[in-house]
Structures are given as C-alpha cells and as structure tokens.
C-alpha cells in the first residue's frame, strides 16, 4: 500500500494547510503551477529563473528533475526530483525553482507542500537573491530514513511500525536554525 504523507510547515504566523487566517482572510498561494499540471521550463544551470512557472534546475551532472503522473496527490501530475548518485550522477543541487515577487518588510511567509519521500534528503526553500545556486535561504528539510526505493516497500513490518509511531514514518523533518548562504555548485 502506498503511503501518502502531507508535509506542511510554517514560516510565518499563518495557519498550515487550510491557509486561512484566524481573521477569516484567505492566504493566496503565490507559487505558480503548484501542482506541476502545466508544462515547465526547460532545464537550466546555475543563474536566474523566471517567475510564473517552475524551471527545472540542475547545477550540472545531476539527474534531471521530471514531471511525473504517479505518485500524485491531486490533479494528474507532480514534480519528481531524483538524483541517482549511486549510478553516476553528480552529487550537486537539482530541483525546480521559480522567481517570486519581493516581499515587503516583515512579511510573514507560509510554506507547505505534499511530499512523497523515497530516498535521501530534499528541501523546500525560500531563497534570497537572483541565483538559485548561490542564495541565502530558509530551508525546510525532509530526510527519508530509507536509502532506496526497493527497501521502502519490501515488508509489511515496516508499514505496521510506521502506523504506530509517526516518528517512524520514514521522514525526519527539520526547520532552519540559521540563515546562511548556500553555494551549490
């Protein structure tokens, strides 16, 4: 049985998931193409990305991110970021990025995403600057405790254990403790 997990985390005082404030105001999602339903931009290396849609980004030599039709949470598509270092891909940054409008001073930001963890560590980040490769960022990092896809579905024992304990679900969640420049290339 597939395991579906909705990951949501907050940067800001907003409410998670429902994206509705206590005052009744509705938060507007500023992420374009949030479900990857529309075609995305061609893959680029380090540098700037456009607003209004995702661009597939790759610092060079990583496995190219792709839009997939399974698994998905809603709609027909989702974005998969897979870097197969064990089979020769370069261990550098890759994923999907899009430019956002500049936020006003003291903006309160909420970030959330559904994620399907299969292996390794990945992130959702709000970055500052024009180069996605070299940017200050706040990252929500998700770590899968299963090293490979095959092992994640190999036994019923693991599934039963995950049901009993959320901490054994295969994901370690961490919020940022510092804001620091990250150089990916």
């Amino acid at each position, binding site marked *: 049985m597939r*395991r*579906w*997990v*909705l990951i*949501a*985390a*907050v*940067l*800001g005082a907003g409410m998670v*998931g429902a994206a509705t*404030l206590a005052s009744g105001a509705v938060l507007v*999602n*500023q992420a374009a193409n949030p*479900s*990857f339903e529309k075609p995305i931009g061609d893959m680029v290396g380090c540098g700037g990305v456009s607003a209004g849609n995702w661009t597939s980004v790759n610092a060079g030599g990583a496995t190219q*991110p792709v839009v997939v039709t399974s*698994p*998905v*949470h809603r709609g027909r*598509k*989702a*974005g*998969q*970021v897979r*870097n*197969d*270092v*064990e089979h020769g891909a370069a*261990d550098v940054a*890759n*994923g*999907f*990025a899009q430019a*956002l409008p500049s936020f006003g001073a*003291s*903006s309160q*930001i909420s*970030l959330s*995403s*559904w994620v*399907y963890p*299969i292996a390794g*560590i990945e*992130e*959702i*980040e709000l*970055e*500052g*600057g024009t180069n*996605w490769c070299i940017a200050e960022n706040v990252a*929500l990092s998700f770590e*899968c405790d299963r090293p490979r*896809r095959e092992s994640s579905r190999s036994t019923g024992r693991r599934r039963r254990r995950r*049901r009993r304990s*959320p*901490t054994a*679900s295969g994901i370690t969640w961490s919020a*940022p403790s510092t804001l620091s420049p*990250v150089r*990916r290339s």
Partner: protein
Amino acid sequence: MVSTVNLVTGKAKLKVDGVLVATTNAGTPRSYGAPQNLFVGQGGFVGDGTNDFVFDQVALSSR
C-alpha cells in the same frame, strides 16, 4: 534591496496516510536579498548522496 521576513518555524507532527500538522512558534526576523526564489529539490553542499522525492501542491503565501 533586502526584505525582512518574519520567520516563525513550524513544529511538525507526522501522521501516516494522512496529514502532517505543523504548529507555529515565535520566530526571529531574517533578512533576505531580493528578489526571492522558491526552490524544491536537493540543495545544500555535495554529500547528500542519492535522493528521490516527489512534490505536489506546493504553496507559498505571505501576509
């Protein structure tokens, strides 16, 4: 230009086959160089190794 973002980190609780709920804590304002990007995927320095995640319903909102 630098934007100051009022960062409030979330405290996550995982729930299998359902919804992960995050609750908010008091945070510290952080400064960003503008403009901003939204990124999902493998970041950071080399050394993360093989990874594989699928993302859907990505949301960013501000107020």
